[in-house]
């Protein structure tokens, strides 16, 4: 199939996803608010443990004593990650629920192209949600997010997502093979919560610090917090950007190869239509 046809499929898949979202408009409102609901317990816990909104021990670990912006940034960036994990990684399992997986697989289309359509749709959806969250965080919670900081932050987010979507595509292949992946997605969510600095500084323990080094999200979050909280210039984050680019290349290639392998394996085993 030609490149033009592939683009048409990506567009059709994008439109399909948008139609599904529009069928459940309350979901958009929910995802704009939900990350703040997850953040609130951490704010109250902070108040209970240190009595205010800053902590000297926290500053030693992160460079900033303010834990509120720390968890807010973690919540916003993780919106992209979890939307990718569910919307791309778990997307083929959803097609099974809808009874449409077989149609996709037997159509004369490369499933990777279909997944690219889903990825594009998820990216747009997550960006809309994060924009709403950023507005709330800036105007109501005092997050210092100026226009000058948005461009470098967006560059880091893009570098993070290119590799992450590669991983999500591999995970989509995994769901073809193991079927009931819902719980595994949850576990991955919590692996990210535990071994990357979404909710707490991983430097607090040697184990979490070491393990977090293999997760691209760690580098992205440290860089984004550096830009927003410590006013660092993106030019001073060259090492982080290089690491993210290398991880992107590795994850994209391995993601593609893993998906093709798992798709073939599932077809050979004849378990594609199994539930």
């Amino acid at each position, binding site marked *: 199939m030609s490149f033009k046809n592939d683009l048409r499929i990506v567009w059709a898949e994008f439109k399909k996803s948008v139609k599904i979202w529009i069928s*459940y408009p309350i979901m958009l409102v929910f995802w704009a608010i*939900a990350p703040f609901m997850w953040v609130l*317990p951490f704010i109250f816990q*902070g108040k209970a443990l240190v009595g205010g909104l800053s902590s000297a021990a926290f500053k030693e670990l992160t460079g900033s004593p303010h834990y509120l912006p720390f968890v807010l940034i973690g919540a916003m960036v993780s919106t992209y990650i979890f939307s990718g994990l569910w919307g791309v990684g778990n997307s083929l399992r959803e097609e099974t629920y809808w009874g449409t997986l077989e149609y996709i697989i037997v159509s004369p289309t490369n499933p990777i192209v279909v997944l690219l359509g889903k990825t594009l749709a998820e990216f747009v959806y997550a960006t809309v949600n994060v924009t709403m969250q950023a507005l709330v965080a800036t105007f109501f919670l005092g997050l210092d997010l100026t226009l000058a900081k948005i461009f470098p932050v967006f560059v880091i987010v893009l570098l993070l997502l290119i590799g992450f979507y590669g991983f999500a595509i591999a995970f989509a292949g995994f769901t073809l093979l193991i079927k009931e992946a819902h719980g595994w997605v949850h576990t991955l969510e919590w692996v990210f919560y535990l071994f990357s600095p979404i909710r707490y500084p991983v430097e607090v323990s040697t184990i979490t610090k070491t393990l977090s080094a293999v997760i691209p999200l760690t580098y992205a979050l440290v860089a984004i917090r550096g830009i927003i909280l410590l006013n660092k210039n993106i030019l001073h984050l060259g090492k982080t950007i290089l690491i993210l680019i290398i991880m992107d290349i590795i994850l994209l290639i391995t993601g593609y190869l893993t998906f093709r392998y798992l798709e073939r394996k599932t077809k050979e085993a004849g378990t594609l239509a199994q539930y």
Partner: protein
Amino acid sequence: MFWHSFITKTKHYGRAIWYENMKEWRIELTYKPDFIRGMIDPLVYAMPYLLYGIALVGGRTSETLKGLVGTDDLITFVTLGYIFVGFINMALWAMGWSLRKEQFWGTLESVFVAPVPRWVFALGMALHSTLHQGLMIFLQIIVINLIFKLTIAPSGILPSLLVVGLMLIALYGFGMMVASLTLIFKQGWLVSEALSGIMMIITPIAYPLAVLPLFMQKAAMFLPTTYGVMTVRHFLIGEQMGFTVWTAFSRLVVLGVVWVAVGIMIFEIIDRRTRRTGTISHY
């Protein structure tokens, strides 16, 4: 005559509850890796709260916490609190999500035409999720204890179990209400996610009730989990609650009666409504 009919019905419903419970276990054990993963989950869930606490105070003790509740050990305080997240998940996800799951599997209509009331089906789900959560919580406590060495008063274990038992009754009612809501909203995970988000905030899991804004403190008084978590921590680590043990027990009994009545009532109303409007099989 009345007693004979009552005993026959109870046996009949009891068997249906048991088979529903067994059905859930069979489905779960069909996906073994997923089952094992589910056992580890609660441990992974709790750790960010513990490590975040350590990052904030630079150790495991907090003088501010001691001033608020009378104990400075944040690890034991948060771990005991976090156990109750499992119970919230039980009501909102395992029970609340149960009817939507049957819809996905294409078996909701078959289950609903069985000759037992629909709340019996929900109680079967409740039995299964109570056993499942119990197992997960047991493992969670053992592992966290091995890592952090929790300090609790052994004499508080029995009364704590009694408190948890009372709290579960109220949560069953709550779970039944949520389960029925998914028949109307279809995308029921949204209901579960929103309610669990709210309950996780206003139940004093990783912090004392006193740090919440006043309106949240008042709302927390209608949740059985608030009394559950505070009373258990009172028995095990001496948390100062701001109300007596007797008050906690009596309020849990009242909440149990109210939530079960409300749960069954809403379940029945929605069940009747969805069948009248013919939307039960809508997706």
